[in-house]
């Protein structure tokens, strides 16, 4: 059950028509190496669930630029002009979701919840496509769970058991997505033996992690 894998193994995990969650917040904490391998793998017609679609001149943005996506579920696409262009031309289906709702949907998917009720978006166009549920006199939107086939996660340190630490603001969506996908692939800046990360400090427990790729030079 060794979770540490090489680039070829990772490439073999990708396929057309997959549904992917990719961690990161406008390129910060995005798994750039895994995205590289995804681009090399040639997978197409993908669904991306993520906070945004990166910058059009940086790595996470290339999934849009190279037209690998047919659908995006995100909270913000303003930093990648190509996303808006493909959306307006009808080549890319884009579903915009408030960021706090998006992360709760992903969390619900990982936590086995049938959804959460959020006040966010009531009275806005977001409510038009949502079921409204009233609880004790106040209206909420039903935010349904989201899951995906594959999570691409960027970690700072991983141990060989898959326990993860993240660095600074690069944490963002990564730990939540690592709970909500059938298979979880991690790109780690450093891999250490199990036992070197204090079990009290673990952010993502290793039970969620299937594969770990070292992203550094020494591979």
């Amino acid at each position, binding site marked *: 059950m060794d979770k540490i894998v090489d680039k070829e193994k990772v490439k073999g995990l990708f396929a057309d028509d997959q549904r992917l969650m990719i961690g990161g917040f406008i390129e910060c904490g995005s798994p750039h190496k895994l995205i590289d391998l995804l681009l090399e793998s040639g997978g197409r017609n993908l669904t991306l669930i993520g906070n945004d679609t990166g910058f059009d001149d940086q790595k996470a943005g290339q999934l849009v630029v190279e037209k690998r996506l047919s659908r995006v579920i995100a909270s913000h696409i303003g930093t990648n002009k190509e996303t808006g262009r493909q959306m307006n031309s009808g080549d890319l289906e884009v579903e915009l979701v408030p960021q706090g709702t998006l992360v709760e949907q992903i969390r619900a998917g990982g936590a086995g919840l049938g959804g959460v009720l959020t006040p966010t978006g009531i*009275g806005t166009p977001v409510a038009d496509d949502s079921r409204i549920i009233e609880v004790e006199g106040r209206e909420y939107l039903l935010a349904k769970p989201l899951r995906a086939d594959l999570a691409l996660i960027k970690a700072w340190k991983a141990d060989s058991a898959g326990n993860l630490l993240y660095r600074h*603001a690069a944490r963002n969506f990564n730990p939540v997505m690592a709970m909500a996908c059938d298979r979880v692939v991690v790109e780690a800046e450093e891999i250490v033996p199990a036992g070197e990360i204090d079990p009290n400090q673990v952010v993502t427990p290793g039970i969620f992690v299937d594969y770990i790729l070292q992203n550094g030079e020494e591979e």
Partner: protein
Amino acid sequence: MSEIRERIARRIAQELEDGDLVNLGIGMPTMVADYIPDNVRVIFQSENGFVGMGPRPPKGEEDPDLVNAGSEPVTIKTGGAFFDSATSFAIIRGGHLDATVLGALQVDQQGNLANWKIPGKLVPGMGGAMDLTVGARRVIVATTHTTRKDQSKILPECTLPLTAKGEVDLIVTEMAVFRVTDQGLLLEEIAEDSSLEEIKEKTAANFSLAEELKTFV
């Protein structure tokens, strides 16, 4: 233009109180942090996952893992903490923020805000703005009084898709400070280089006058 933005940021900074936890939106709202008085300790939250956000680091000390929600390099102050996006929005939605400062495409006399979509033209997405408006105790809008085409951004009713319904508490422009009340907008302050006449002329929304109209710089 940069003078206008500074004035708005400076005026909003006076609204923040010692001990407040505050989220500043991208753009002009971010500048508010530069004008907090020394004796007021405000904690800034960054929706991408930390509290205790500090100013831009010196050149050469930027860290790609330490940026604000607008991708600008920042720092973290002593006592700050990092967390994931679920926790970040639990803070935002859960009523733990004392205030948020956001920009506007349009804002209206019911306290509605539109700042995420111009149909058929520009659809950047709402990011965290809808959660911020619904969750923060005070929603302060930082906006130029008019568009570049000199049209009022303060309307009887927003025509663009809304970010939030009835959540705005205060509107600060380079000319005026309006409080949003149950009875509509209340003009409380006039910039020292503006006048009630100018504000009336450039404001499409209806507003009433505070008993004591103040001046701000």
